């Protein structure tokens, strides 16, 4: 809980990892390339005091994560979103199996999520069923740019993807987190395009599925906003956007004012993407943040304390049925 000046804010971190990118777990040059790319995001957007050495960044201990999120970082509940990358890391980068012991040890602190990959056919479907039975998951994270053998990605509109989404609807896995990356099949198309989210959001609206687009479709913010404005079951995860608040505050303000106008404060979810960034400094700055007057005037939106409360916790609490203390 964030507490200051007599007021409390309930914090849900909508996107965290407990990854292992250590050299021992790297399968090839892509595993090294992946974590170095993350590290540049981390170094570029974090305040100096929050920059880690690469070795720690590759693999961090449980105690560090608990401290950064829950002791220093104000977080009440953190949502695990796995990123498997089994073609890059021997045991995967951050799988549900890696996250599960943390959930078991700290059941009140974490929400565990699974994942699926439309290319895994009937076997993957069985694994999804097992994960639901075993871990009682209510959400999945889908990384459509994941490499698998010679394939460089997949789409939510692929026939098998629909079978998985049918299964999610059937089993009550209602929160579908979508993460786009630089590759997809076919490679001549824009891999970051979120048009497939548009299609399935319409098709699965009545089935109760919600689509949370991670880093709000960046670098295709405009395509994302045009979809979200039409599809009430599409949400913006604010990973990657939030840390702009320190290093690029003007861009942060511009992106936030666009999101507030197009998507609205009820469908934006705070996320640190830990360990990409640590939540403490982001939350400190966000609570104090005011939209500049010129942007308020141009866009006609404002970011109020009520809006910040929704973004920092209440919106995610509603998606995952997390009880919110009366004090918040």
């Amino acid at each position: 809980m964030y507490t200051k000046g007599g007021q409390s804010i309930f914090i849900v971190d909508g996107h965290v990892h407990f990854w292992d990118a250590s050299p021992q777990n790297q399968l090839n040059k892509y595993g090294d390339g992946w974590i170095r790319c993350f590290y540049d995001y981390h170094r570029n957007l974090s305040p100096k005091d929050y920059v880690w050495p690469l070795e720690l960044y590759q693999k961090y201990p449980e105690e560090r994560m608990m401290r950064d999120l829950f002791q220093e970082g104000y977080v009440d509940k953190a949502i695990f979103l796995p990123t498997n990358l089994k073609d890059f890391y021997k045991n995967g980068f951050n799988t549900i199996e890696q996250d599960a012991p943390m959930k078991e040890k700290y059941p009140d602190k974490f929400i565990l999520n699974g994942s699926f990959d439309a290319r895994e056919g009937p076997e993957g479907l069985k694994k999804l069923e097992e994960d639901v039975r075993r871990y009682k998951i209510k959400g999945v994270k889908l990384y459509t740019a994941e490499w698998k053998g010679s394939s460089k990605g997949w789409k939510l509109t692929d026939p098998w993807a629909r079978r998985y989404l049918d299964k999610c609807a059937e089993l009550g896995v209602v929160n579908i987190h979508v993460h786009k990356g630089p590759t997809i099949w076919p490679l001549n198309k824009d891999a970051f395009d979120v048009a497939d989210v548009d299609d399935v959001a319409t098709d699965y609206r009545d089935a109760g599925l919600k689509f949370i687009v991670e880093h709000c479709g960046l670098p295709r913010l405009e395509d994302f906003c045009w979809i979200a404005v039409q599809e009430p079951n599409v949400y913006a995860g604010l990973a990657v956007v939030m840390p702009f608040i320190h290093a690029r505050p003007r861009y942060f303000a511009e992106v936030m004012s666009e999101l507030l106008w197009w998507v609205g404060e009820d469908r934006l979810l705070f996320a640190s993407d830990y360990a990409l960034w640590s939540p403490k400094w982001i939350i400190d700055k966000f609570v104090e943040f005011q939209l500049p007057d010129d942007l308020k005037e141009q866009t006609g939106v404002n970011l109020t304390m009520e809006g910040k409360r929704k973004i920092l916790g209440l919106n995610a609490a509603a998606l995952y049925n997390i009880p919110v203390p009366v004090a918040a």
Partner: protein
Amino acid sequence: MIEPDPSPGGRTIGSGAPAAAAPTEAQVLAALGKVLDPELDRSIVDLGFVRGVTVSGRDVRVELRLPTYWCAPNFSWLMAADARDAILDLPGVDGANVVLVDHHAAGEVTAGVNEGHTFEKAFADEVTGGLDQLRRTFRRKAFFVRQDRLLRTLGGHDLNGLRLSDLPPSPEAEAYLAIRAELGLDCSADAPAVTDAEGRIVQDLQTHLRCVRLMRVSMESNTALCRGLLDERYRGQEAIGGSR
């Protein structure tokens, strides 16, 4: 002095015509300055993507570096291929070698581009066609972003009925006119200034202005991120000719 016959494999020089002198590094860089990052609509030189230019005789070698190891292979290809074409268009050049470095598809892109292959040949199993559609999509985005930048310079000017001849000269107006010409749109003095990418007059101006602003915010925040990542990745290693 008239050079003797060109070396085998080089460009044929017309009989009796004097061969152009090999370009200087500065001339190569000036040519590369016109090559754009298709996503960001900015020069690859300005973005700091050009790491090295070497002119040996009539052969030019250029190294390209990108903000991340994972920059999308299709856009990376377009930049490398456009860079090679720009160099080969220079007088006095026989060979161009564009080398993409520190990238997950460095091998495929470098080999494919320098052998003069198409993207669909280089990535045969992973594509359904070429990159023309992708390029067009992003030139359209660039058109709207340039339009927004221009309109923002006009302050309280009434945009209804605005003609190209009403635009005061500015770098933003020049950039907008250039992309209008590139897209084959009407560039005459009487042409309407605020149009869609097909040159049609905008009907709902308020919605249009919302949309183009969003596109600009998207492209500019993306540019800021790319610049930051490149800085981080190559801290202490200066690009050639880059600027902020």
